[in-house]
């Protein structure tokens, strides 16, 4: 570790410092810190960390100890994660404002979770993989159960904890097996050694499969998906947004990094397992969502399916696939944050606005919000003019480019199935209902965030060229 290493680590370090600063401030104000202060400090931390990314990016790529690599890929995903956490923070402010307490512990946990995610995307070693994941997970347990007054929040927290811990042990066991096979825990080293077909012993296979189980749980892929709806429903809306975007995105980024080094297609059974998981995720997620009346659960189920779509691009492999995955993740982040943002801003103090009934006729009461929500849902469905369209297009392109016909066709079919429940919500938004009371006013911060997300959504959907350029230059380092 030298000065240069510390320099490139600056974003991570800032991210690590931010929760400490919040904690210290809380300690010095003896717990009387105002909510806004905590938020502002968190936002500042995220903003500085983001700025640091720009500062250090010329120095990329640089391997910092065997654990962390700061290449343009990591920088890109960290940027995405920080930006998303920024949005989540603002949404959280709007969500928690008015509730009792100063909530600084919430922001500390959020910042820690962000830190964990940042470590994940920069990880190049099982240890950093594990550390990042656990920092993220343990923060999430508390965040999910944060609303102490809510029974559902507590229930979700316990479920997530038990299952995440169990899956973590799968992950760890798998890592141990791989380590036992190769004697190294560095991704690059593993990749080198696994290029030799003789290394493909049942031991290694079992190890890899168990790692996939750990990752699959985090990504909520079938059959490790069952926690998703309950956790999404029970967690506070901004936390659900965080789980759906940052937590999954970071994990996927790591997976992509790992399997760009290790060619998954050279290893048949693993490829087959992924294929089956992808197909099962698409079908299960979409079919589960069909008649669901809880919006958060719908989004949970839909996220299962979306990760299935993402796997299609992932399995395609190659530079195109990485671009496709990245683009898809950006558009999915924007969309899902927007969708949960809507839920957040509409939620009252007692409970989250998550039943379909609450959204019926929203267009009459709050036309703009309904419009934004419509845009988000259409983006999830992959309709033109929205980010989701280009994202889906990219995924299909990657799939066709690698001739994954089965997966692509399944994707097409599922895309159609998913329309049913997205449109069901959309129609409810515009339904004609008599005299509903006006929903709460949108806070300024919330409004700005929603506006920005919507504009991004449209920009990504209409003129994707600049984003593609960024992605292509940043992720090029990976291949």
């Amino acid at each position, binding site marked *: 570790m030298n000065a240069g290493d510390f320099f490139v680590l600056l974003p991570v370090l800032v991210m690590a410092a931010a929760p400490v600063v919040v904690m210290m401030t809380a300690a010095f104000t003896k717990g009387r810190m105002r909510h806004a202060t905590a938020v502002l400090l968190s936002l500042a931390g995220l903003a500085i960390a983001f700025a640091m990314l720009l500062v250090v990016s010329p120095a990329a790529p640089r391997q910092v100890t065997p654990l962390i690599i700061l290449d343009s890929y990591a920088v890109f995903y960290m940027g995405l994660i920080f930006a998303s956490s920024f949005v989540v923070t603002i949404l959280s402010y709007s969500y928690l404002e008015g509730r009792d307490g100063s909530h600084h512990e919430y922001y500390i946990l959020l910042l820690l979770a962000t830190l964990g995610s940042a470590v994940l995307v920069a990880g190049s070693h099982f240890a950093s993989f594990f550390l990042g994941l656990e920092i993220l997970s343990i923060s999430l347990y508390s965040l999910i159960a944060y609303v102490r007054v809510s029974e559902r929040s507590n229930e979700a927290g316990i479920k997530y904890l038990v299952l995440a811990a169990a899956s973590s042990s799968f992950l760890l066991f798998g890592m141990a097996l791989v380590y036992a096979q190769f004697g190294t825990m560095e991704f690059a080293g593993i990749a080198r050694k696994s290029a030799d077909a003789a290394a493909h012993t049942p031991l290694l296979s079992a190890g890899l499969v168990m790692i996939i189980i750990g990752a699959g749980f985090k990504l909520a892929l079938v059959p490790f998906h069952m926690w998703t709806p309950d956790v999404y429903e029970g967690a506070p809306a901004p936390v659900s947004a965080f789980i759906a975007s940052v937590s999954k995105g970071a994990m996927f980024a790591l997976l992509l990094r790992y399997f760009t080094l290790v060619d998954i297609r050279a290893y048949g059974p693993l490829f087959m397992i992924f294929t089956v998981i992808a197909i099962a995720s698409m079908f299960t997620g979409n079919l589960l969502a069909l008649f669901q009346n809880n919006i958060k659960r719908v989004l949970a189920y839909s996220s299962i399916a979306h990760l299935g779509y993402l796997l299609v691009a992932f399995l395609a492999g190659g530079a195109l696939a990485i671009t496709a995955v990245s683009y898809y993740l950006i558009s999915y982040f924007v969309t899902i944050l927007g969708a949960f943002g809507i839920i957040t801003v509409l939620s009252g103090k007692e409970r989250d606005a998550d039943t379909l009934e609450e959204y019926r006729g929203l*267009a009459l009461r709050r036309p703009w919000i309904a419009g934004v929500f419509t845009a988000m849902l*259409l983006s999830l469905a992959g*309709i*033109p*003019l929205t980010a989701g*369209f280009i994202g889906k*297009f990219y995924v*299909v*392109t990657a799939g*066709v*480019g690698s001739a994954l*016909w089965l997966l*692509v*066709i399944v*994707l*097409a*079919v599922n*895309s*159609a*199935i998913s*329309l*049913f429940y997205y*449109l*069901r919500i*959309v*129609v409810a938004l*515009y339904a*004609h209902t008599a005299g509903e009371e006006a929903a709460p006013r949108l806070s300024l911060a919330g409004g700005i965030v929603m506006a920005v997300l919507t504009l991004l959504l449209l920009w990504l959907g209409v*003129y*994707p*060229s600049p984003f*593609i*350029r960024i992605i*292509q230059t940043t992720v090029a380092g990976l291949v």
Partner: protein
Amino acid sequence: MILLWLIIIPFLGGLLAWRSSSVNSVLPRWISLAALALDFILIIALWVQPGFVLSPPGGLMQAGGGMWIAEGNWKWVPQLGISLHLALDGLSLLLLMLTVFLGFTAVASSWTEIQERVGFFHLNLMWVLTGIIGVFLSLDLFIFYFFWELMLIPMYFLIALWGHEGRFYASVKFFIFTQVSGLLMLIAILGLYFIHGRDTGVYTFDYLQLLGASLPPAAEFWLMLGFFIAFAVKLPVVPVHTWLPDAHTEAPTAGSVVLAGLLLKTGAYGLLRFVIPLFPRAAFEFTPVAFVLAVIGIIYGAVLAFAQTDLKRLVAYTSVSHMGFVLLGIFAWNEIALQGAVMQIICHGVATGALFILAGSLQERMHTREMSRMGGLWAAVPRMGGLALFFALAALGLPGMGNFIGEFLVMLGTFRVSAAAAVIAAAGVITATVYALWMIQRVFHGPVGFKGEIPDFKGRETFTLAVMVIIIIWLGLYPRAVFTTAKPALDNLQKAVTVTETAGKQIHDGR
């Protein structure tokens, strides 16, 4: 640039109409009319510009080769070889005119029918038209797909929000059918993109560059099939037609008009513009299948139309039957049949649109579409009766009306390719007679089955339909304008195919 405006004007018009509804509920209607009028003026300006009816010297559809009446090409996503390539030839021009005209009638027909969320209604209406115009202008396969999908959502809203009882089911069914098939097309587009890219090193979605792509026969077949299914669903071809009766029936009048008059035509346009020119060999080998599907559609649609008791459903099934002729004409792929198909596209758009307006007006007045609850209406509403009779006759292909010219040319052109197909199609005319007359009988003739006051058409409706009558008659007796406008475009499409058929294997004689 003018082409871009053609798309932008209705798009902005829709937005403006939406926002204006807070001022006044009539304003959106006028704004929509104004936007359409503006578009119409632009189209007419393109039509009458000097040197329009050119047969290009080079012949082939080269970019900038003088064969397009107007063309524009802007970079969009260069990383993927996507550009905003728009171009207009006679074929597109005719379809644009139809689009704008039916746009007018759609606005007019919803003038009193739509009283809720007027602004939003017109937003959707205008955006459907935007998407359709985009489809007719796109020369980049990605852009084409973009507009292809774009028109669905507003159409979906039109059905789902202003439709009748079963609107949710119908609208979702419509959407899912078109979406699945659209994605299959996307897969085929991408397949073509990659094959062409790997062969030439140029990755592009540009239609003109992809035209000459040499494809392995098996790949060509599957890609063709991907396109074909998408267009077949839209057209619609039996057995993927079942979304159509539901959607047409449940849609509000304007929705039905746009669906039947325009959306179905995008399928026909796609077959004409893309399927055969891009995959000539596969398409020609596929011809027997297409013919079988077409004649089944003609007969089956007509029989099912007869079987219906719901007036709008009946008209919907007639579309299945009539679009069978279009499919037949396109796959017969000779000038007579193609001109017939174009003619049929236009006339079916107008005539079926008119029938939907009539059905919608009846529903607005009687609050039912069930024909068993009608009957003997002639006495009460002779003007509606007369107009309905007229359009029913147009539907059954009475000579002197444009539909006859279309059907006749299609069958005439088909006859030399497949006499059997032409003969069965001709038999479809008999079934058309059966359902058309039966419809008139149950609604307007027979003993009076409905009590209460039913007002006849007033000025606005009469005017709208009178214009449609005049168009049908005009096209039936003096249709040359259509033929001369379409001819260069059709010639070019045919030339493109003969040039592409390098293998020299002429599958069908006399083509």
